[in-house]
């Protein structure tokens, strides 16, 4: 009885759950996600159904029945389908060559895939325009006027040209996923089939193919999703060829007078396509789990190709030449030439660099703006990602899964849609954010927060919770535990994640094109504007500067974080 009494009196002093620092940090993060993602999306939805007299579906009706919009939708799907198909063909061949054959020059293939993935796709597009535009493209001019082979010329301003340029950016998705799947199938699975009497072909069809097919399909869908979202190449190559796609059609709706309602409705249709494709991709990937179980220890079966390996080698060299050498050397040559043309090498100069770096304050501002934005956005995205990942993996907070899913939503949002949503939201707010650096920052952080979450998740999963718990039981507060234990341990992963955000932000065009103002102009927008004015050589110089910044970021992050970019963009990072 006395024990009961003591228990009863103690209940009065029962430890109340106190508000601690971590609760404020968690609350702040949730609030940030609401402002970055949830509210803009709600306003996008609202904007698409808001009429003069209450809610209606007029905008959707117009978008679905209008010829222009249907044509854009159709073109986007065609582009996505062809790009997916070619990405599959190229990515799979290269992946198979690297992971299952004795092809020489495997490093070359890996470099090709990594650089293609990191290169700004609109710069590749510009480079190809300078080579293959119907009248002035260097190679076309050469073939027509010098070699006398006009029938060999190639018009880049066509669906074929658009697919070509887009594939150069998207085939790495298939490559990365396929090669990771192919390397993780242990030879013992195939040997087990062979010892039972299955031929090589039979083994490949009945054992290997089913094991790796989900990963390959998932890579193809990712290529599709990324292809249709690229505003830059579709504007640079599609518009002159009169191929209007969803992003360029949405962009056109912002010409005065801006059609916010139509843009919102079209954006939502765009989102539906993207989300459906990503849903399929996830479903395929989920079936892959038994392959990853084999883990890093797997020993894949290699095939000795004999003389055929030189054929494969030739293919990979060709890929390297088209995807890397052609665009990079073109842009470099353009940037150094006085006047781009067949005789460009006669007047090499650094004037173009001088112009954009010293004389022209717009490009100066753009470079400075983009650097500032990319550094802040990458830091914020990774910090928020780390907190969201931590909440998901380390707490039992109700709704933490919802938080995680919310942070992944932007994966399904093309850049231009993010811009439309932010415009809808912030135009309705009393805060004049539209046209400032602020709205660009929100767009970048919101768009790339999934990369931050993923980087943090991957790192946190590798750290046993007991490492944090043992600091806690020794008396460490949440902040001390984070500072002393968690953060130092996940730092390499966070640096890799930081880089994964920095690189796309410094080249971001799809959202920036709708959000910039003369004061908040960014690097990619400046390139695009210069390109529009026809300042060919100066575009080249600015493009090269853009590439150099990306290269420098990779070097710095590698030095600081100890992780390498190839580690960072491993298949899991791309696909998860």
């Amino acid at each position: 009885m006395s024990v009961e009494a003591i228990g009863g009196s103690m209940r009065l002093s029962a430890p109340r759950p106190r508000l601690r620092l971590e609760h404020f940090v968690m609350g702040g993060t949730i609030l940030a996600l609401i402002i970055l993602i949830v509210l803009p999306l709600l306003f996008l939805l609202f904007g698409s159904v808001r009429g003069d007299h209450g809610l209606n579906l007029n905008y959707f009706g117009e978008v679905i029945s209008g010829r222009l919009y249907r044509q854009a939708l159709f073109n986007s799907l065609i582009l996505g389908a062809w790009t997916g198909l070619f990405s599959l063909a190229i990515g799979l061949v290269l992946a198979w060559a690297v992971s299952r054959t004795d092809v020489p020059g495997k490093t070359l293939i890996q470099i090709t895939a990594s650089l293609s993935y990191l290169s700004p796709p609109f710069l590749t597009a510009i480079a190809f325009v300078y080579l293959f535009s119907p009248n002035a493209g260097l190679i076309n001019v050469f073939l027509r006027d010098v070699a006398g082979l006009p029938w060999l010329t190639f018009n880049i301003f066509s669906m074929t040209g658009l697919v070509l340029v887009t594939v150069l950016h998207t085939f790495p998705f298939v490559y990365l996923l396929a090669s990771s799947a192919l390397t993780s199938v242990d030879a013992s699975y195939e040997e087990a089939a062979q010892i039972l009497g299955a031929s090589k072909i039979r083994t490949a069809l009945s054992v290997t193919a089913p094991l790796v097919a989900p990963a390959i399909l998932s890579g193809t869908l990712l290529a599709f999703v990324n292809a249709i979202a690229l505003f830059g190449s579709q504007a640079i190559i599609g518009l002159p060829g009169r191929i209007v796609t969803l992003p360029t059609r949405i962009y056109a709706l912002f010409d005065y007078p801006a059609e916010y309602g139509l843009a919102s409705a079209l954006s939502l249709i765009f989102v539906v396509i993207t989300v459906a494709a990503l849903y399929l991709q996830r479903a395929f990937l989920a079936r892959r789990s038994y392959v990853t179980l084999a883990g890093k220890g797997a020993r894949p079966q290699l095939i000795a190709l004999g003389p055929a390996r030189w054929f494969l080698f030739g293919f990979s060299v060709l890929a390297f030449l088209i995807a890397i050498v052609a665009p990079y050397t073109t842009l470099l040559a353009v940037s150094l030439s006085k006047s781009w043309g067949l005789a460009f090498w006669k007047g090499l100069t650094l004037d173009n660099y001088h112009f954009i770096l010293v004389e022209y304050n717009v490009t100066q501002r753009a470079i400075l703006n983009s650097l500032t934005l990319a550094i802040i956005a990458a830091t914020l995205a990774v910090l928020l990602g780390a907190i969201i990942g931590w909440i998901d993996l380390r707490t039992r907070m109700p709704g933490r899964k919802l938080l995680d899913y919310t942070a992944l939503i932007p994966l399904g949002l093309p850049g231009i849609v993010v811009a439309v949503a932010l415009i809808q939201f912030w135009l309705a707010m009393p805060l004049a954010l539209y046209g400032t650096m602020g709205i660009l920052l929100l767009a970048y952080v919101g768009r790339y927060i999934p990369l931050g979450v993923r980087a943090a998740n991957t790192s946190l999963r590798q750290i046993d919770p007991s490492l944090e718990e043992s600091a806690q039981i020794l008396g460490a507060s949440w902040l001390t535990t984070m500072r002393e234990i968690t953060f130092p341990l996940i730092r390499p992963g966070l640096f890799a994640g930081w880089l994964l955000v920095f690189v796309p932000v410094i080249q971001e065009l799809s959202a920036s094109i709708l959000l910039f103002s003369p004061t908040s102009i960014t690097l990619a927008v400046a390139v695009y504007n210069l390109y529009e004015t026809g300042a060919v050589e100066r575009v080249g110089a600015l493009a090269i500067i853009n590439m150099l910044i990306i290269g420098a970021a990779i070097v710095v992050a590698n030095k600081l974080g100890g992780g390498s970019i190839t580690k960072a963009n491993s298949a899991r990072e791309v696909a998860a």
Partner: protein
Amino acid sequence: MAGISIKALSKSFGARDERLAAVSELDLEIKDNQFVTLLGPSGCGKTTTLRLIAGYIVPDAGTIHVDGKLLSAPGGVVPPDGRGMGMVFQNYAVWPHKTVFENVVFGLKLRKIPKHDARRKVAEALALVNLTGLEQRYPNELSGGQQQRVALARSLVVEPEILLLDEPLSNLDAKLRERMRTELKVLQRRTGITFVYVTHDQAEALALSDQIAVIHGGRLQQFGTPQEVYSRPANRLVADFMGLVNLVSGRVRDIRDGMGRVEIGNALAIDIALPAGTLVGDSVEVAIRPENIHLGKANGSQISAKVTDRTFLGNISEYYATLDSGQTLRVQTHPQQVFELNEPVTVEIDAAHCSVFRA
């Protein structure tokens, strides 16, 4: 020093079904300065109990008091960093980015111990676990046993009143495990800290503990000294878990002064204390440990079993003796006592060391 008082503690993880609770209505009084083991198979709730004591988990019901101070109740818990306990984890949880010294000094820094004193205390703690000289090593330069001792030193250096240990020896090889076992026991005696030790290894529990709490299915099955738990198991679960046991069914033939005559098969009967309320004719289960059965050479009429299998294990021999009734007993004998396969033998059971449970 501190005692722990656990009352009606329950915790389930999401499962609606009461029977699937990780811990269910657990009562435990752990006295000051004791080595107490929570013993049970994996998934029995022993680690959950330990994490409830540490404050990582909020209970669904019940309370935990330490020295009369309420630390855990369903409404909220004093967080782990406010409990002043120590904990040693199964995977050591030695921080890989800190040296041995930095690992051990961490808790002292939090307590704002002056540098000079901290240095001395770390040296003492490392000496206590025989790690002197390894201060500047990183964990990846240490063996598993050394890492385990770093974890111990890190917990001990802050002089906790209670040290929680979650299967701390399970990742070590057999020899090292035995040595660390001895060291832990010595350490507990020397420091007087209350040890709460989780393990699934009954031999470890028997060797180390002052008291053993046998937990199964989230419920406390028995709480007692190693001798009590081993030779007077409270139920068949405990009997089964505490080492090898033959659980054979029998029937009560006769009862006299609380002692009953239980018939096992046709030719074997033992006189044994029965649980209260047992009636003549009841079916019961008898728990007989292999070392409490003695085989003898059969001399004509006294045959009661036949040897059906035998295994030589070095320090003992193990036999399977099959009774007429078809029931088989596992028997341990001195290695020099040899029986042949299919040899008829007599079976004698040391009834004083057996237990009866109602079937």
